[in-house]
């Protein structure tokens, strides 16, 4: 798991440059940073963090994963974050508007929607249009959250209206309904389908290209390890980072 054995004490959460037991070897860049990342990035960023630490001995990267808007609330409230990776540009804009970002955010990945069905696809969903069938219990994201906004965009573009049985506030909740077999189909991101493994079955559809979601990342102005924070941002947007992301199903920015 991320962070290795470096459980930072309470003081480390307030001062990111404070040394930790594992950071005793004196090589630059060193220190500890905390990365606030959207929940959908958990698997890839955990892996990236470990690789980054190996590549830069003496550094520790800890993560806090949650919904993008939760993270924005926390950062605005003074949470000790050095880097923020958002699942959409809207939430990143909230931070830039609040002048909490140092420099300009960089887009590092994109994501598109895919239909998820329970294993075996019991309702026999094969296309986006199938979701308009009232016999198919479909769960989507609410329009106010990024994946829901994308869904609306596709609905508008295709003229298909989905009679959803539920409009969830997070991808996780859509996925949960599908993987438990409660719903016949759900609209989530490609990476979510891939990350869920055998629990769900993906049904790609052509119209997904009409709504591409962009992931921006930025170092934050409150950081006390600006160098290390920028190094991590560079790592994610660099070749190593992009390789890991694309293996997880993310598209190029």
């Amino acid at each position, binding site marked *: 798991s991320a962070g290795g054995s470096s459980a930072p004490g309470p003081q480390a959460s307030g001062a990111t440059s404070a040394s930790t037991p594992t950071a005793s070897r004196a090589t630059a860049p060193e220190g500890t940073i905390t990365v606030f990342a959207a929940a959908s990035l958990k698997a890839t960023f955990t892996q990236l963090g470990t690789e980054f630490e190996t590549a830069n001995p003496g550094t520790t990267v800890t993560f806090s994963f949650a919904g993008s808007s939760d993270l924005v609330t926390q950062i605005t409230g003074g949470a000790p974050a050095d880097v923020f990776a958002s699942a959409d540009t809207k939430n990143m804009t909230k931070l830039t508007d609040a002048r909490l970002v140092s420099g300009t955010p960089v887009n590092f990945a994109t994501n598109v929607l895919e239909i998820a069905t329970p294993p075996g696809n019991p309702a026999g969903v094969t296309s986006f249009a199938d979701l308009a069938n009232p016999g198919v219990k479909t769960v989507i994201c609410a329009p106010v959250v990024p994946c829901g906004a994308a869904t609306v965009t596709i609905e508008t573009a295709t003229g298909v209206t989905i009679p959803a049985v539920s*409009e969830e506030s997070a991808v996780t909740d859509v996925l949960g309904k599908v993987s438990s077999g*409660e719903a016949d189909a759900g609209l989530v991101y490609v990476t979510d389908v891939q990350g869920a493994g055998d629990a769900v079955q993906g049904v790609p559809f052509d119209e997904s290209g009409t709504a591409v979601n962009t992931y921006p990342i930025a170092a934050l102005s409150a950081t006390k390890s600006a160098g290390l924070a920028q190094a991590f941002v560079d790592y994610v947007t660099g070749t190593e980072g992009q390789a890991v992301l694309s293996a997880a199903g993310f598209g190029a920015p």
Partner: protein
Amino acid sequence: MKHSPGHARVPLWVLAIATVGALFVVLPLVAIVVRVNWGQFIPLITSESSVDALLLSLRTSAVATVLCVVFGVPMALVLARTAFPGQRILRALVLLPLVLPPVVGGIALLYTFGRQGLLKEPMNLFGIQIAFSTTAVILAQTFVALPFLVLSLEGALRTVGTRYEAVAATLGAGPTTVLRRVTLPLVLPALVSGAVLSFARALGEFGATLTFAGSLQGVTRTLPLEIYLQRESDPDAAVALALVLVAVAILVVGLANQAGVRGRFSAGSLS
């Protein structure tokens, strides 16, 4: 003692600590009130989705409270007035929904009453479909609120003791009569406050509903879910709605307290 002397009944240091404790609970409320965008308050809370959510919340919480009373009173009685092997374990199990993070509770309900759940076959047999319906909301709320009623009532039953019940029995009252005319009236204050607790918990229920029932305007999207959703796009609306939820809760609790106080009798006097 009805006419108790005017001097304070509690030591001063107790008052001091209690004040700190009360501040700890009250300040966050003040903080919310301060943040509300009062200029936009009325439009924010009267949007169609907000009103739908509030009405749904009130309706489902009321039904859930009734279910809690119907099932919780017998459960409390069994726990307080009978002795059987395994009773201690049962009491601990009844506490479960309190400790279960609501999301886990929702998963558990899904695994039980869902389409692929434990009760799949009997439910299919009767053609019962719970998922994504208002019934699911009520079940989730009942599940998390039931322990509140059971525990507050069980405590009261134990404290009241069985002396009055014994007297009633010697006067010829059967178990049901004793229950109706002696036991329940004696613990009425605790029953009322337990029901209020249950209602409040049902009103605030979020995680289990989200996981088990989904979130569709007018059907399953209760006020807490609406608040959570609004936060994404419109934090002002979320804060305003949170304040509405708080106001409703205070209203209900206040009314119930009044009823409880009226129904309360002096437990006896010294002479």
